């Protein structure tokens, strides 16, 4: 099976497309042209590879989690260590790629949206490195919740612009970034943070994140005499780390599992399980699954991990769910916290809360598999950014115990 999507209209089956105001169409066409030129240009590819190697620290290792495997007694578990990237997550792969593209297209300024601040930090980092002016749109509510990341972005020279529209969170920051892009398309590049948005963004982000999957595949094959793993597990917010690691395996006989945030449980309504509980609709210029009211008003998601807290999902994931190529599952806050603790104790790795969702699902999967099978977890980021949340969580639990 060979990938033939997206088609020329940016459709993955019925999903994707460009549902944007007419004023943006020109910018999207320009972007698509610039992107196609860049990825066919040997110099651009060399620059990108150079930066990924010498600046971000790629290739990231594929680590065998021996103690965790032993504890569970099931499939062998391997960790694709995106947490070891510069800035601590896979987000930088995309930020470097798009920032280099912006530069190649002659843009002087970038704008980005951010929820928890992870993508904002990655974008600000790339902007500093490549000499671009950077504005990050962030919901007022998120600015309050993520003070430290706001400070980090400012240290990196970015301007953080509070968004006060709608619910003042990631979805509104994304709307605002798109709106601002519309009014400044001539000299500004919109550096989107996940595999979402209007075509060609999902395709661009996938291209820059697919390095995760191709590296993991080569590394695994090298360790296993050319064989492939049985399963690959990744968490899904907008879906960029997952689409990146899946890219290496989607055309192979490998089971793929995407993990959404189940929050406090699907039945409570407090979750970000777009594919388990959403319906088809349009968000941020793309036709996909999303959390919405009966009438189509977009709803606010919830998750303990800010990076999975998005009411939509990239259109390619919608397609992979629709075609049943990928199995999408949900993990609750509680399960993710438990998995995070287990990984700390067994392997000495403090992973991001987002990644902990993938770990929790992988623990379930591994237990049900035989010891001669193997799976890879995309460990999308490190947990330093979450220490404060974990600390507060612990304090709360302690006070309940007393």
């Amino acid at each position, binding site marked *: 099976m060979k990938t033939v999507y997206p088609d020329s209209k940016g459709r993955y089956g019925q999903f994707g497309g460009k549902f944007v*105001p007419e004023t943006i169409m020109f910018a999207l066409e320009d972007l698509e042209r610039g992107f196609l030129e860049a990825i066919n240009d040997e110099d651009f590819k060399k620059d990108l590879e150079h930066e990924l190697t010498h600046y971000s620290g790629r290739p990231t290792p594929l680590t065998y989690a021996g103690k965790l495997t032993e504890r569970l007694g099931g499939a062998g578990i391997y960790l694709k260590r995106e947490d070891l990237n510069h800035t601590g997550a896979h987000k930088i792969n995309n930020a470097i790629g798009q920032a280099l593209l912006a530069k190649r297209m002659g843009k002087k300024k970038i704008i980005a949206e951010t929820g928890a601040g992870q993508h904002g930090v990655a974008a600000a980092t790339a902007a500093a490195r490549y000499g671009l002016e950077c504005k990050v749109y962030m919901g007022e509510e998120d600015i309050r919740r993520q003070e430290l990341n706001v400070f980090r972005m400012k240290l990196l020279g970015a301007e953080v612009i509070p968004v006060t529209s709608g619910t003042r969170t990631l979805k509104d920051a994304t*709307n605002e970034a798109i709106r601002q892009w519309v009014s400044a398309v001539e000299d500004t590049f919109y550096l989107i943070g996940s595999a979402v948005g209007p075509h060609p963004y999902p395709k661009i982000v996938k291209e820059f994140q697919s390095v995760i999957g191709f590296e993991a595949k080569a590394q695994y094959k090298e360790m296993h005499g050319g064989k492939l793993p049985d399963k690959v597990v990744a968490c899904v917010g907008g879906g960029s780390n997952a689409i990146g690691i899946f890219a290496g395996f989607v055309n192979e006989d490998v089971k793929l599992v995407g993990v959404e945030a189940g929050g406090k449980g699907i039945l409570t309504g407090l979750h970000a399980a777009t594919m388990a509980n959403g319906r088809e609709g*349009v968000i941020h*210029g793309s036709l996909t699954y999303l959390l919405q009211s009966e009438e189509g*008003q*977009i709803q606010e998601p919830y998750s303990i991990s800010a990076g999975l807290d998005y009411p939509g999902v990239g259109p390619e994931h919608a397609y992979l769910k629709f075609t049943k190529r990928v199995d999408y599952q949900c993990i609750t806050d509680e399960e993710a916290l438990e998995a995070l603790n287990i990984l700390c104790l067994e392997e000495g790795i403090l992973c991001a809360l987002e990644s902990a969702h993938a770990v929790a699902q992988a623990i379930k999967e591994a237990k049900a598999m035989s010891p001669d099978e193997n799976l890879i977890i995309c460990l999308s980021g490190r947990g330093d950014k979450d220490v404060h949340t974990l600390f507060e969580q612990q304090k709360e639990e302690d006070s309940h115990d007393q």
Partner: protein
Amino acid sequence: MTNRMKEFQNLKTPLFVPFITAGDPSLEATVDLALALQNEGASALELGIPYSDPLADGPVIQRASLRALKNGMSLEKAIKLVSDMREKGLTIPVIIFTYYNLLLQLGEQKFFELAAQHDIDGLLVPDMPFEESKELHEACLQHDLSFISLAAPTTSRERLKEIGRTAQGFLYCISSLGVTGTRTSFANDLDRFLENAKASSHVPVLVGFGLSSREQMQQFEGKCDGFIMGSAIVKKIEELGPELVNEETKDKAIAAFSDFLSKVVPVKKVYS
């Protein structure tokens, strides 16, 4: 096309199409405001449906959307409201302005049924560019609705030709980059853009986005067939909101609204 829309296309220019958000400040007030707009010379009405994520709109219309959503407004209710307007004497065409997701969730078939029942004349979907709209455009034709297309100063010549060729009702030319909202300057190559738009379109060419005064409209005199005004009107409604929903002050507020309109509605005259 409805007869109302045919009459609209034959009106003396400049045409004037105001935008208001359905349900802001209340359902009842929306009906009264629509009638006031007709009385003051509106040639058609763009009725905006409030949406949680209005990508093409600036802060003024965003705020109106939030207020209208709090009042429980929806696409279906807004369409039904048009029958109330008609009963009270509204005869100008009504164009439903809705983001695509609301239409998708209501269902196109249901939308067309409601539109026929409640005397709707046109549909404008701001987040549905030309390339995505072919099927909906066709479906509108079959149901006698005018699907209103937009063109921007950044629209390429080839696309503008295609958009103009298939335009229904009127062609909505966006006068500046960015989102809706009042502004003081417009895209600089606007004259060229409007010339091209006029050349490629067989329906009236209207200019909108950011217009707030008669003086601004005078800049475009003779270069287009009329104007669309949104944020400036919605802002006035925001100001008058509390008075509009109070039975005792309502009439005075409508009078103030009409007075405001009489100062911004372009003066009718036939261009030669």
